[in-house]
């Protein structure tokens, strides 16, 4: 899977280079783009992990898991051992993922019904779930299913089950909305998906852990300063970079 993923990566990387943060001063793109965010998160998926990937950028993580690591992907509609997308024309409408896209299976995969699938989730058998976010609060609350707008059609899917049941929740998200509002907030204004569930956040600007003291920066994207991140983050921000801790 990793070999194929690498080639997929090459194919798609050029057209995605543009998707970083637009620097307001000079119009150039700074920070990590979507592919780079997924690649950074993939570094933290250990060998042997059982992983559920949300729709959107999280799906890309599978492409970047470092070679030599064997990771098993779960999709909550009833498959453990999900493989990559099929070749065009090879799609099977009865072999899909939670995003209702055609997938394949790896050798050693298994099918099961929905209650068994969510028993894997609720029973804390899945090691890591990577999700998108509308907002993450400093205490790890996640809002990613509804803006609460009056005319919105509410739709939650498996998000609440995943955050309540999976051992470790990673979030991949742009640091700010298109309007420039921080998605890392003191307290979520959108309806919650779960309380105190997020462990780590991968944004276009930084990698941050959720800690009792607030968002703890582990790593900054190239060319991004703590001040730049602080300006774009609500809630307490701590510099937890190894260099900073060790070298200070």
């Amino acid at each position, binding site marked *: 899977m990793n070999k194929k993923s690498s080639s997929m990566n090459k194919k798609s990387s050029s057209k995605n280079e543009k998707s970083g943060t637009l620097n307001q001063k000079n119009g150039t793109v700074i920070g990590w783009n979507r592919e780079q965010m997924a690649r950074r998160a993939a570094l933290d998926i250990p060998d042997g992990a059982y992983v559920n990937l949300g729709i959107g950028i999280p799906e890309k993580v599978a492409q970047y898991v470092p070679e030599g690591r064997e990771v098993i992907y779960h999709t909550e509609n009833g498959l453990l051992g999900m493989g990559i997308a099929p070749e065009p024309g090879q799609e099977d409408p009865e072999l899909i993922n939670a995003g209702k896209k055609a997938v394949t299976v790896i050798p050693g995969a298994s099918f099961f*019904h*929905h*209650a068994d699938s969510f028993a894997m989730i609720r029973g804390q058998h899945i090691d890591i779930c990577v999700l998108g976010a509308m907002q993450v609060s400093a205490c790890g609350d996640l809002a990613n299913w509804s803006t609460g707008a009056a005319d919105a059609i509410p739709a939650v899917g498996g998000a609440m089950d995943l955050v309540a049941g999976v051992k470790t929740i990673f979030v991949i998200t742009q640091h700010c909305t298109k309007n420039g509002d921080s998605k890392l907030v003191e307290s979520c204004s959108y309806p919650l998906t779960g309380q105190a569930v997020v462990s780590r956040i991968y944004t276009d600007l930084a990698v941050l852990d959720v800690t009792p003291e607030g968002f703890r920066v582990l790593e900054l994207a190239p060319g991004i300063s703590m001040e730049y991140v602080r300006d774009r983050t609500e809630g307490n921000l701590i510099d937890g970079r190894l260099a900073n801790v060790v070298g200070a």
Partner: protein
Amino acid sequence: MIDKQVGSAAAAVADIFDGATVMVGGFGEAGSPIELIHALIDRGVKNLTVVNNNTGSGHVGLAALIENKQVGKMICSFPRTANSTVFPDLYRAGEIELELVPQGTLAERIRAGGAGVPAFYTATSVGTPLAEGKELRNFEGRDYVLEHGLKADFALIKCERADRYGNLVYNKTARNFGPIMAMAAETTIAQTGLQLEVGAIDPEVIVTPGIFVDRIVTVTEPAQESRLVAAGRSYP
């Protein structure tokens, strides 16, 4: 003699009544019993409560059942998807009720309904708007909400192989809600692609034992929802 085979989809759904609760299998189009749903449209009964993960797409299958104003209430986790406009439009117009349930809670409620468990506790949705009005209870330091088992008058599901006892085997991720809905319904109606002799399915690989199934209809070449939607088809 036990023979659960029924000659047509129309005959299989002939006793579904106005106001019935109907579980409809499938996750998106995978596992959706489209011929049984269309038979239910032909039948024309109203004010159904339908349990399905979604609300269908385009103007065929479940979406067509809703569009035909036969559904008073949907119980589901994700009522909007690509190509789904029927439910959103009716919902915004206040013409259809929605009970939104997290997907895993929905699955567990159905399984509980089938397993004789009237209620159970789950951590899913604690602290969210979907836990509002529900009983909260702490077990070993963590909060959980009380959720109730869900049963239905009928289940319409789709499988790959079946025998006259009602033993079922599914195809890949089309299995999804089929096995648990079969357990939770008073009358379970399955459409199968292949009808086999009793004994032709290995007892070790039967997913739904016949005890959970009441009627079998053979539909050897079922329509595929996405193809119908892509072709702009509608039903009836």
